[in-house]
């Protein structure tokens, strides 16, 4: 299983730490951010393959953060994490280029599956970009 770099963005510390711990156990490189601005800051400093982004956060929300992430790094894949189903944010997120939506609570296997697909997509996209430049 290939290791890739994941950033978890969620304002709920316990949830974020728990998921980071479990992903690390699966040999992933994981970092965490407790807010949108913090995530953007980290994105300036280091490369990530996939970002797991909570939709509902105080201040800068997930949709706003997604927009900013895609402007900074269009090829980073983002999986939206949402506590409650929201059609509007769903449509908005997909249009802004989110890879998928995951509903809380999420089984780690499911999340892992989606992370893997998102990573695969990023690799394909990078390859495609290389071929066409």
């Amino acid at each position: 299983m290939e290791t890739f770099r994941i950033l978890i963005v969620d304002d709920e510390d316990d949830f974020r730490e728990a998921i980071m711990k479990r992903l690390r156990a699966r040999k992933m490189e994981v970092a965490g951010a407790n807010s949108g601005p913090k995530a953007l800051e980290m994105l300036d400093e280091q490369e990530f393959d996939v970002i797991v982004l909570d939709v509902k956060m105080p201040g800068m929300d997930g949709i706003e953060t997604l927009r900013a992430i895609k402007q900074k790094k269009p090829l980073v894949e983002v999986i939206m994490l949402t506590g409650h189903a929201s059609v509007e944010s769903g449509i908005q997120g997909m249009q802004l280029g989110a890879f998928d939506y995951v509903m809380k609570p999420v089984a780690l296997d499911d999340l892992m599956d989606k992370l893997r697909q998102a990573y695969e997509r990023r690799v394909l996209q990078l390859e495609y970009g290389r071929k066409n430049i």
Partner: protein
Amino acid sequence: MTDSTPHLPGQESWPGLWHHLAVYGSSWLVAMLAIILGMFVSLLLGLVAALAAGLSFLTIHRLLRQKAVADQEKHLVDEQLLQSQKLAALGKLSAGLAHEINNPLAIIRQEAEWLLFLCRQSEPLDMTEAISGLRQILKQVDRSREITTNLLNFARRQQPIVQAVNLNRLVGDMVRLVAKETEQRRITVVTQLAPDLPSINSDAPLLRQVILNLLNNAMQAIDQDGTITISTQPTEPEAILIQIHDTGCGISKELLPRIFDPFFTTKPQGKGTGLGLSICHGIIERLGGTITVASEVGKGSTFTVKLPITLTPKEI
């Protein structure tokens, strides 16, 4: 001798001949006459029939040709209509874009002219004023750059990334995403997912966008109390069908041909951009599939998406 006329061989009198013939050859002659008559009649009939056939052939041929010409003309008109609709959409898009970029340009021009004016004054330049002007110009340049970057990203995203997609799962995920809202509106969502559906090679995020959009439209068409049925099934050749049926308000015959047009919407102002379905249409086309709609006012609508099992990415 009762007959006074000398009877020479070969010189029989007419009544005699007639008699002779009547006695010995009548059946022969009648048969011959019948045959000749028959031939004549059948020849005549054949001629008439041939003439009729020829005429009708010509007529049918002419009719067919007329139909072909009419079809061609209709096709041409359709094509032209499509083309003009596309141009209209492009026009609207460019108008929006021009507006977006003209606004920062206008500010930049005002600030630059103001700075030029300040520089030409005889008294020393007011530095705070100059700096604020330059800052404003930089801000507007950034704003314009953002617009062009977004456009570029948009264009880049047009290229599908092909991965194995489990459609049943994808549909299930999207149904779950709308579950809360359907519940609030008392809408039942029925999923009929074919268990033997093969996984397809396609672009998952783009498909999610389409399914979510169609589910959202179905929900808005129903508003309250109704049923959305979403199904997947394999179909020939090498394709799969996704159908989304709602028991909503339906779309009238007049509007039906326009619903995939960009900027066309039946929703109240501010509720829809008129881009949802046109984006779906564009996405499905890029994924090598088709999207069609059947609808009846008051009964509901069915959107059918057909996708190839294997998508070979096309170069743009």
